[in-house]
């Protein structure tokens, strides 16, 4: 197990480093003058000069890439074009909002998805089960930004129940939470569907397995078989899938941030693309990738720790 952890960490490291290189190279992968690519065809002279200097475009390509990688590894992501602020600090300001959003979205999805899935599994082919199935599929197929827009429309505009803009004040917990409800629900919607379905399918498979047959055959109470024995087995693949989907979750956070005008990495990156503030885009994307890779790593390791078959390597027979 320990060896695997090291291998996995190594792999994660490789991916991050590779990403740094790719991002450093990005501008040069596209044919054309890098300055024009970054700033667009109508770039002013002064701005061009700033860009040239900041990105060291007069140096050979490899030097540029290397200096970016080296900087990124030490936490320096350069300065942005417009206000010459260190990119790292801009990102640091935006980062917590995004993380909070993602975590609460995931939490909501789990909170509602798991019980729904378990409930459906314990009553297969009942009307509840069918309803859950339909609901899950519907939820899955709603693109998150559509969900966000609809939620905003319904709750913020039509019903004026919840705020539509901003993240609220960080100091004021209640206010912040109020501003968090709609965005995190928008994020959670798709995932609720996935989780419910996944839990249901896993549970059904587990309940049909031989060891569940044993549990019934020895007269264990139904409650215990479902909620202790079956559920524990079902959680494991659920976590595995969740881990894989974390990347998508964070990507969807981008949309939700824009829709609800929330400060965060997503909003930062998208705005910077529009304003052609390339260093922020580059740095922001790197940070997002690091988050995603880290989240995947955590999910992968925790699912392996949870499954005793993997945690304790089997002794020979």
């Amino acid at each position, binding site marked *: 197990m320990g060896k695997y952890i090291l291998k996995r960490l190594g*792999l994660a490291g*490789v*991916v991050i480093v*590779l*990403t740094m290189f790719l*991002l450093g190279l*990005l*501008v040069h*992968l*596209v044919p054309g003058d890098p300055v024009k*690519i*970054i700033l*667009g065809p109508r770039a002013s002279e002064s701005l061009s000069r700033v860009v040239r200097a900041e990105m060291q475009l007069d140096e050979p390509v490899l030097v540029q890439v290397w200096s970016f990688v080296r900087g990124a590894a030490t936490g320096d992501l350069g300065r942005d074009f417009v206000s010459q602020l260190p990119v790292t600090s801009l990102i640091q300001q935006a980062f917590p909002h995004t993380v909070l959003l993602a975590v609460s979205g995931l939490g909501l999805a789990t909170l509602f998805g798991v019980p729904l899935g378990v409930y459906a599994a314990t009553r*297969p*082919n009942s009307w509840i089960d069918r309803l859950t199935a339909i609901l899950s*599929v*519907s939820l*899955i*197929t*709603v*693109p998150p*930004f*559509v969900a966000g*827009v*609809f939620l*905003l*429309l319904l709750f913020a*505009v*039509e019903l004026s129940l919840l705020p539509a803009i901003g993240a609220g004040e960080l100091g004021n917990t209640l206010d912040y939470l109020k501003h968090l409800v709609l965005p995190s629900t928008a994020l959670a919607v798709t995932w609720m569907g996935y989780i419910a379905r996944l839990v249901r*399918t896993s549970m*059904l*498979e587990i*309940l*049909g*397995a*031989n060891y569940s*047959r044993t549990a019934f055959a020895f007269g264990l109470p139904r409650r215990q078989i479902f909620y202790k024995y079956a559920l524990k087995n079902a959680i494991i693949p659920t976590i595995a899938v969740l881990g894989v989907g974390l*990347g*998508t979750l*964070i*990507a*969807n956070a*981008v*949309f939700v941030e*824009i*829709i609800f005008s929330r400060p965060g990495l997503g909003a930062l*990156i*998208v705005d*910077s*693309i*529009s304003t052609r503030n*390339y260093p922020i*885009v*580059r740095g922001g*994307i790197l940070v*997002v*990738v690091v988050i*995603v*890779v880290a989240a*995947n790593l955590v999910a992968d390791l925790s699912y392996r720790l949870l499954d005793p078959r993997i945690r304790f390597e089997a002794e020979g027979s």
Partner: protein
Amino acid sequence: MGVVVQGGGRRIGHFAGRRLFRDMATHPTGFFGLLIVVVLLAIAISAPLLAPYDDATQDIARRLEGPSSSHPLGTDDLGRDLLSRIIIGSRVALGVAIPAVLGALLVGLVLGMVGGYLGGRVDYVLLVLIDTMLSFPAVILALALLAVLGPSLRNVMLVIVVSFVPAYARVARALVLAEKGKPYVEAERSLGARDWRIATIHIMPNILAPLLILVAMDIPSAIAVEAGLSFLGLGVQPPTPSWGVILADGFERVRDTPWPVLWTGLALMTTTLGFTLLGEMLRDIVDPRVSEWRRWQRP
């Protein structure tokens, strides 16, 4: 042994038409999905004929109106008829998503086959690249590329292809590896068939089925990605009526009128629902899994 066993894993070449229809009949949701997709395709193809108005005709005097007899879905902020824009938007949606996903399939298939068949170092490098690419969420990758390429419909297609290729490459590679070990490949080799011939004529048809299912499941994702990027202003540029664009315009004025947002959202949801249901039905047909309580006893 007892009962007639229902077999799984049939390949494309072996589809008996009757069987296909019978399977579909027992899968009402999938059939519903198929219906939606067919209707959608019909709308998209006949869009110019179907739409009552042109997608650009403005009627400023009647902007931001709700549904009416002359504008069944209402008008947008420039007085353009929503119904027409959405109908023509379906062309954009499918016209971007379908070719893009098919393109990803093509490139991914080739890459996967090359890696899987040749093995060795080529395969290893491919694998590492694929895994790295897969660590990027699709949207993030899209953002990175669009930042340098600039927003446009063509670039969105390119971005979708690039994002989806790794998944196809990985699946294709896995399938090729599985096929490589099968007896018929060895038989062909011993008859003197050359590698590329084996790969293209013999192996490829056998691995297409699962890949095509992936296509069916990816088209709604591609539609959503394109709409999303266009919504952010980074994809299809207005005035081209991509659903994302219509949604964005409508969103800006959502406090004045909910209709553009509502109709476009519904269009998107219905489309993704249809394709998803269809994809799931296809997947169940080709690779049925016992999803009910497994019988402990086989009669």
